[in-house]
């Protein structure tokens, strides 16, 4: 068949789109697969780090419409912790058992007649927390004095391994230049438009769970979930959803919720549906790992990269849960990147922190690796005095296939050519001229480039690189990268293809139809592709799913193999009918014919039907109707050898990104003049689908570069809790992306396709960083390059001012300097003597009248009070349980107080210093200074307002104190209150 006649390679319009664009596609929330379906809502921790003293569900259970509550005790009794590959002492349950370790961690699950009622019941659950100092950063986790997240394990460093390839020490010793780079790479979320969904039903009769979910695979998680649920494989029927609204890896992390909701269904004895809302997703789905990297490059005098030294510390969040520490190892065998470097030393560590646990998120371990590598290359270019593009051209791999020091084989490519293509397409010479003239005018213009090798179709053995050879020897080995497909032609001659991929919008059905159409000689419209997976159907394996670009590599290869088997049978049948050799038969446009051997032809459909209906007369070598199962499982995907070398993937794409940007010094805004991405992804199966993938990957990568970051306060409160604070790029933010292709087909896949789509996610951040560094001269840059952060860096400040850890605040601190992220001071003149004010401040009866919203206050000891206070600002209010402690008193002149309050909306702690001075006869000048922190839900949502709210709460209090001691009723008319209120506000307006 001539290339122009082939369907593969054409931009065929996607079959999926009509339904998706007209609201007819069916997602998790559209499903009601069981009668009597109930709804779950999850009570989640508001603390990043706290022991759970008690949970009282009585009021929740009593609410009409509630069917039951699953508690941590239930979970511990009914399930096993989810296993990890490092240690049994790192218990991971799908909810907090005894201790909450990240903001948003599930605690209890309410099952009710509707989500509304379930959420009402969640609000009625009383949890008593005992907050602990949080371990938020990698630095915190490494500190020997930090709180241990997992008492049984005893350290926050949960994994360590070193590797050595070649002679890195020797090369570093004789290097002409050693260039170092330190990077603290932040965490991001994939923010798919559809969140997690799980519907679970437990049949007590046969002990079987049936679960519907938009879990994306790999199905290696199936046995893991079975083990957690204490059932055998056939007792967990996992059914995929008809459509999935995006995943980008993150829907791998839905598996703990499969356990949790499964248990809820079992406890309550009813089928349960849980649809994750956006707030839950941003807090507690999963996020990419954060990574602190120290990279050194050893260069000779010509800029040849001789050796690399990598110290990588991975932050996996609160638990080490599968697939991690894989994030650290997926790129391991290509730690040389696209370069010819032969000597590599690696020191890996994995730490746990009070953050959301990690999981697959676009690029999985790629962005964290390429950022330091490509920054280092740019720094090296500067230090050695070579153009950064020239430096790369000198060092990239030039002959293929190329075996990396850690064992991967880059099977094909022309990296230099691809780089040149990027330069051409970007109009590099014009960009250089633009930079020249901008600099003459004092404007900051910069050009940046980055390269990446994108690994596709991972060999699952890479996960075992975390183990030493000795440890591997003791276990069942893991290896392989397989794809599976079945091509069926039914009794009516229709073609049906089953594949074990779970698309989330990538157009797999269209592409599969194109491949089968080419092999079998029909039109794509004649091919029905089924991507639904039901573990009861049997046509799945632990590699099934959609991840690591396995679709365009091993899955479509399996499709081709199965389709060829079908074609063979068709040819044999036609050959018999025509009386020719099967090799003479042509299958084209739905017809079988034997050109050059007569004018006979027969519709392909008819041939297929024949094999069903006329099974008594099968041709030679044909054993039955067409139902061809093929597994494509390359035998090169083997286990690591004793030197920790292995082929980590089946294919390797290459990408070169180049950008020209201008940075505004006054606002920190970055304007992208040009962004080009040149790709070698081998054969392009459907160029339109490819383009969609690349633009999407770029959106993710650009978002990570400029806007997105999962951000925590020092106490573990999540600060990026809504889309108001976790900033995704919208259409106006994305620059034009110019895409260029240079294809070197892969000899390892049948169509020659490699993988693609994650490349821009992996290197857009460092491409932008290199351009911004070129423009501004800044050396130490980590994303996101928000205007405010960049401005701070340009003007010598710290980019993350408010995240700087306040001074350590133990639970019962004694007077020192006040600490807290929210600070202020104020003063009020009160027309009575200081002693009168002092007395009022320490008398619970008087305080009850003074504190606005105070429902109850009692003195629990000479220095401590406990109170219940309804705090309400602009209608935003909650009932707070407050503890207050007075100390450092010097009657009647000064005192300090420390308070902490907890409510459903959040919690706060603060310290204040209050001084009373007799300013005039019978007039007290009361001044106060405070430091406070607010955490929990209200802090997640109302970050911008907190400062003002704290000021207003205090202002109101002192206003009322003044009124009270003067004998006025606190309150008065609205106008009076407001006037006094305003007066007090004015008094401290000039405060810090």
């Amino acid at each position: 068949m001539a290339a122009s006649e082939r369907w593969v390679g054409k931009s065929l319009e996607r079959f999926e789109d009509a339904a998706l664009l007209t609201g007819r596609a069916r997602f998790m929330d559209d499903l009601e697969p069981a009668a009597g379906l109930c709804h779950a809502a999850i009570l989640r921790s508001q603390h990043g780090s706290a022991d759970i003293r008690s949970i009282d569900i009585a009021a929740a259970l009593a609410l009409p419409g509630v069917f039951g509550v699953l508690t941590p005790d239930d979970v511990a009794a009914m399930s096993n912790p989810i296993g990890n590959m490092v240690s049994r002492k790192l218990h991971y349950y799908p909810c907090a058992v005894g201790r909450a370790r990240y903001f948003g961690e599930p605690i209890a699950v309410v099952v009710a007649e509707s989500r509304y009622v379930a959420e009402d019941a969640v609000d009625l659950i009383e949890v008593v927390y005992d907050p602990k100092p949080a371990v938020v950063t990698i630095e915190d986790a490494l500190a020997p004095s930090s709180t241990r997240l997992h008492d049984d394990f005893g350290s926050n460093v949960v994994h360590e391994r070193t590797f050595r390839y070649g002679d890195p020490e020797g090369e570093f010793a004789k290097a002409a230049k050693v260039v170092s780079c330190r990077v603290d790479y932040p965490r991001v979320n994939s923010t798919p438009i559809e969140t997690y969904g799980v519907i679970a039903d437990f049949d007590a009769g046969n002990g079987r769970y049936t679960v519907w979910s938009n879990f994306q695979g790999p199905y290696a998680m199936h046995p893991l979930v079975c083990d957690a649920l204490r059932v055998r494989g056939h007792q967990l029927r996992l059914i995929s959803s008809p459509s999935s609204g995006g995943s980008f890896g993150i829907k791998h992390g839905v598996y703990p919720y499969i356990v949790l909701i499964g248990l809820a269904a079992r406890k309550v004895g009813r089928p349960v549906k849980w649809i994750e809302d956006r707030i839950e997703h941003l807090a507690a789905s999963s996020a990419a790992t954060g990574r602190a990297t120290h990279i050194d490059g050893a260069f000779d005098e010509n800029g040849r990269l001789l050796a690399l030294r990598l110290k990588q510390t991975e932050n996996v969040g609160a638990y080490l849960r599968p697939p991690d520490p894989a994030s650290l190892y997926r790129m391991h065998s290509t730690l040389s990147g696209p370069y010819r470097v032969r000597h590599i030393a690696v020191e890996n560590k994995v730490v746990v922190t009070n953050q959301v646990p990690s999981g697959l998120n676009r690029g999985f371990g790629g962005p964290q690796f390429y950022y330091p590598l490509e920054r280092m290359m740019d720094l090296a270019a500067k230090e050695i005095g070579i153009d950064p593009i020239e430096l790369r051209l000198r060092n990239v791999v030039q002959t293929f296939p190329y075996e990396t020091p850690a064992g991967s084989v880059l099977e094909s490519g022309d990296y230099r050519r691809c780089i040149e293509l990027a330069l051409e397409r970007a109009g590099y010479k014009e960009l250089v001229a633009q930079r020249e003239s901008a600099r003459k005018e004092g404007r900051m213009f910069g050009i940046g480039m980055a390269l990446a090798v994108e690994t596709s179709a991972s060999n699952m053995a890479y996960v075992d690189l975390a183990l030493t050879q000795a440890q591997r020897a003791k276990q069942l080995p893991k290896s392989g990268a397989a794809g599976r497909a079945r091509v069926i032609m039914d009794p009516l001659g229709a073609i049906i293809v089953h594949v074990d991929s779970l698309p989330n919008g990538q157009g797999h059905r269209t592409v599969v139809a194109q491949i089968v159409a080419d092999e079998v000689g029909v039109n794509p419209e004649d091919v029905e592709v089924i991507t639904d997976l039901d573990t009861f159907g049997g046509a799945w394996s632990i590699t099934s799913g959609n991840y690591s670009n396995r679709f365009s590599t091993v899955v479509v290869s399996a499709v081709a193999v199965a389709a060829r088997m079908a074609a063979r049978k068709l040819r044999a049948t036609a050959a018999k009918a025509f009386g020719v050799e099967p090799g003479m038969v042509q299958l084209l446009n739905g017809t079988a014919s034997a050109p050059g051997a007569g004018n006979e032809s027969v519709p392909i459909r008819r041939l297929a039907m024949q094999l069903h209906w006329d099974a008594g007369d099968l041709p030679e070598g044909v054993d039955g109707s067409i139902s061809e199962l093929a597994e494509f499982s390359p035998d090169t995907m083997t286990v690591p050898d004793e030197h920790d070398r292995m082929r980590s993937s089946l294919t390797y794409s290459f990408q070169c990104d180049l950008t020209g940007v201008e940075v505004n010094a006054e606002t920190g805004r970055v304007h992208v003049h040009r962004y080009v991405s040149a790709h070698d992804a081998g054969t392009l199966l459907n160029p339109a689908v490819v383009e969609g993938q690349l633009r999407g990957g770029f959106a993710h990568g650009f978002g990570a570069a400029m806007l997105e970051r999962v951000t925590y306060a020092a106490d573990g409160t999540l600060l990026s809790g809504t889309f108001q604070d976790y900033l995704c790029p919208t259409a106006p933010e994305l620059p034009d992306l110019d895409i260029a292709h240079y294809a070197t087909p892969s000899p390892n896949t049948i169509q020659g396709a490699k993988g693609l789509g994650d490349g821009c996610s992996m290197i857009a951040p460092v491409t932008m960083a290199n351009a911004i560094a070129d423009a501004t001269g800044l050396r130490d840059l980590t994303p996101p390059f928000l205007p405010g952060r960049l401005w701070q860096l340009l003007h010598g400040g710290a980019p993350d001012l408010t995240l700087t850890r306040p001074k350590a605040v133990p639970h019962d601190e004694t007077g020192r300097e006040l600490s807290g992220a929210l600070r202020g001071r104020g003063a009020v003149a009160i027309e009575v003597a200081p002693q009168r004010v002092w007395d009022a401040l320490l008398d619970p009866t008087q305080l009850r009248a003074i504190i606005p919203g105070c429902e109850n206050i009692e003195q629990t000891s000479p220095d401590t009070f406990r109170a219940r206070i309804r705090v309400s600002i602009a209608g935003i209010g909650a009932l707070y349980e407050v503890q207050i402690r007075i100390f450092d008193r010097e009657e009647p002149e000064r005192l300090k107080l420390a308070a902490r309050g907890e409510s459903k909306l959040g919690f706060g702690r603060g310290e204040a210093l209050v001084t009373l001075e007799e300013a005039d006869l019978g007039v007290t000048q009361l001044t106060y200074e405070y430091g406070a922190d607010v955490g929990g839900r209200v802090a997640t949502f109302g970050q911008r307002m907190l400062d003002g709210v704290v000021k207003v709460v205090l202002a109101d209090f002192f206003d009322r104190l003044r009124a009270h001691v003067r004998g006025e009723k606190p309150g008065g008319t609205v106008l009076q209150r407001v006037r006094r209120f305003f007066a007090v506000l004015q008094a401290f307006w000039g405060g810090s």
Partner: protein
Amino acid sequence: MKPAPFKYVRADSVEEALSVLAKFGDDVRVVAGGQSLGAMLNMRIVTPTIVLDINRIIGLSKIESGADIVTGAMVRQADALSNSAIRRHVGLLAQALPHVGHYQTRNRGTLGGSVAHADPSAEIPLVLATLGGEIELRSARRVRRVAAKQFFRSALVTIRGGDELVTALHWPRASSDLDAAFFEFAVREGDFAIVAVACAFERGARRMRLGFGGCGEVPHVVEVSAPSGTNANWVEEIARELSKQLDFRSDLLASANYRRSLATVLARKAMIASIEKARAYA
């Protein structure tokens, strides 16, 4: 993200709305466009007993052109943007509105709702304060008009009593010699402004009113006299001087120093734009 239970009341008239407010006061949240309230309800940040829907009240959506331009509280932001009276006589508002949220949210969001919500970064309150406009408040007992300067107390806090409804906004009708300019800086298109500056320049009197939003809890308005023959140096000096007076705080998106720098930049831009428009008349 489902709201806590509430009673939904849809008023058909202002009187009905006011009687609900008189009876239940602080336990009521009024829903106009729902663009701010919807999210707060769903996140259970607010849990009112009653949600009072005023969308069906006839007569609250008028735009009247008199001594002032009076906009009913329910005038949608999109309608205000395309209204000729507003474009002609309240040019500063017409310049600010494209920055308010997004195209889609402007179809629902209202002028009155934005003012009643009083977000410190909001553009509409800023313009109202800069122009010296007024807010009409009605309760079952009385009607009153409050100057914008008095109305905004603090972030999300206004002088509106629990039994009052914002029923109209009074925008001073721009004289023919008023030149106005509006600039803001936000991270993304449609985001809350980190800093916004509104400038209204009376050519004849050479009086310039500058309003700063996102700098403090409420809009901060100052008046300066512009000497004749103003030049870039004067603009720069004033911009810096004014920025020094303002109260900035640091948060995740912007440090206090950064805000101050932005305020200076935007003040400069707004002043120059106004002056240039004024020159075009000369």
